């Protein structure tokens, strides 16, 4: 198996200077992830699941430890890489699917979905065509494709968000409760797309409200509950 990620001794807490306060999120986490592997993160509210994903994406800065990512340019430590390299990897190799769409005024749904393709150099017409297909797959009604998602319902926005986040296959995909606020059809579409990506070699780490949805994809579970940070080989996932 090709290694995609090797996390070693990763520690993250927040220093709130004005309160003179420290909030611990997680301490000394180590694990690895191979191409095509799917890891489910679990743990109670506040266990640090979102914080771990954001640290891997470098929205958060870890205090210590390393995150060795095998990029197509060679190994790089995401904990220390230059901002410009991180920005490049986010465009090309590392995706993050969240619960919320960052809609912008006067930008249509299809344009938002096409944007990652445009950034990857796909010509406008092709990008829009693929974007429409993705919107159709996630069940966004055709009359909304050219409309502005700022006025969409929560579920509709989330479908646009997913179509956008998953349109370019990535090497590493981070998922933070992507099924929240989705109807059953859209959840099924998401699972299909993730299955495709997994088969194509995308490594995934995700938090799911209803892990049952992705049960067939899960290879391992990592529990972030303090003192439980151990990897269970997947035998029977408690879902």
């Amino acid at each position, binding site marked *: 198996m090709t290694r995609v990620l090797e996390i070693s001794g990763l520690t993250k807490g*927040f*220093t*709130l*200077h*004005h309160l003179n306060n420290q909030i611990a999120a997680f301490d000394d986490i180590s694990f690895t992830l191979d191409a095509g592997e799917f890891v489910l993160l679990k743990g109670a509210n506040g266990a640090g699941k979102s914080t771990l994903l*954001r640290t891997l994406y*470098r*929205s*958060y*800065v*870890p*205090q*210590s430890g390393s995150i060795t990512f095998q*990029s197509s*340019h*060679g190994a*790089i430590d995401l*904990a*220390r*890489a*230059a*901002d*410009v*390299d*991180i*920005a*490049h*990897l986010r465009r090309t190799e590392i995706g993050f699917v969240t619960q919320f769409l960052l809609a*912008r*005024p*006067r*930008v249509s749904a299809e344009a938002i979905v096409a*944007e990652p393709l*445009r950034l990857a150099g796909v010509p406008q017409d092709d990008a829009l065509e693929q974007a429409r297909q993705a919107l159709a797959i996630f069940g966004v009604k055709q009359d909304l494709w050219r409309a502005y998602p700022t006025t969409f319902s929560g579920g509709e926005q989330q479908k646009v968000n997913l179509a956008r986040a998953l349109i370019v296959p990535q090497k590493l995909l981070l998922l933070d409760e992507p099924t929240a606020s989705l109807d059953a059809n859209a959840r099924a579409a998401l699972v299909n797309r993730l299955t495709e990506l997994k088969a194509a070699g995308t490594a995934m780490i995700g938090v799911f409200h209803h892990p049952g949805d992705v049960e067939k994809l899960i290879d391992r579970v990592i529990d972030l509950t303090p003192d439980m940070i151990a990897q269970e080989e997947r035998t029977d996932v408690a879902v």
Partner: protein
Amino acid sequence: MTLTLDAPRIVQTRALLQVSNVSKTYGPVKALQNVSAHAYPGEVLGIVGESGSGKSTLLRMMNLEETPDQGSYTLDLPDVQGNLFDLDRFARRMLCATRIGIVYQNPHLGLLMKHSSSGNVAERLLVAGERSFAVLRQKATEALDASEFPLERLDAPPAELSGGMQQRVQLAKAIALEPALLLLDEPTTGLDVSVQALVLDTLKRLQQDRKITMVIVSHDLGVIRTLADRVMVMRRGEVVETGLADQIFQDPQHAYTQQLVHAKL
């Protein structure tokens, strides 16, 4: 962990803009102290910080209107070499006219208020050597159109336009020559909210369609959040912290940045 990060390893292109160790004193005021900043091609660098922290001074230096007491400035462009602060006035003027665009908070600084809007843009092209009237008119119209200026008002002088429209004329003037670098000092301040959103949107489009490298100064963190790839935080003439925009907003490291971000949330 400190955020003194390694030099880029994956992205092989050089920074387009590099300001190194710039200091400037006005009498007793240390406006800038040992400030360094860079921006890669196509990147948008946001600069935030309290009033008087030196943001506009730094931007004016990037536009070669100001010379620091020490420090250097390079642009990685064809035919542009060495420390730009060493250039004479004429060379500075040519470089700014052709490669750098600027939008000031105060439109009076950037525009001739009594000339026509298209004339304001055409003037920029004239400085760069364009002489054909037809080409001037055509290019000025294109730039105004790209800035989403209503073309039926081409001949109206900025003095007769709203603040948002004036900013569009400044923007058109700034982008008329496809600059490599676009500098924006509070481009949306003083505009009412709906007009602000339109100007922001125009900037976002320019960023996406033309991949112009931008440096944008704003007190409005929403503007910075929308546009910037990276953010630099300044206080009292010094750089406090720089990082990816989402990192600065979600996990600010420095006490001052935390204060700034949380105060505005």
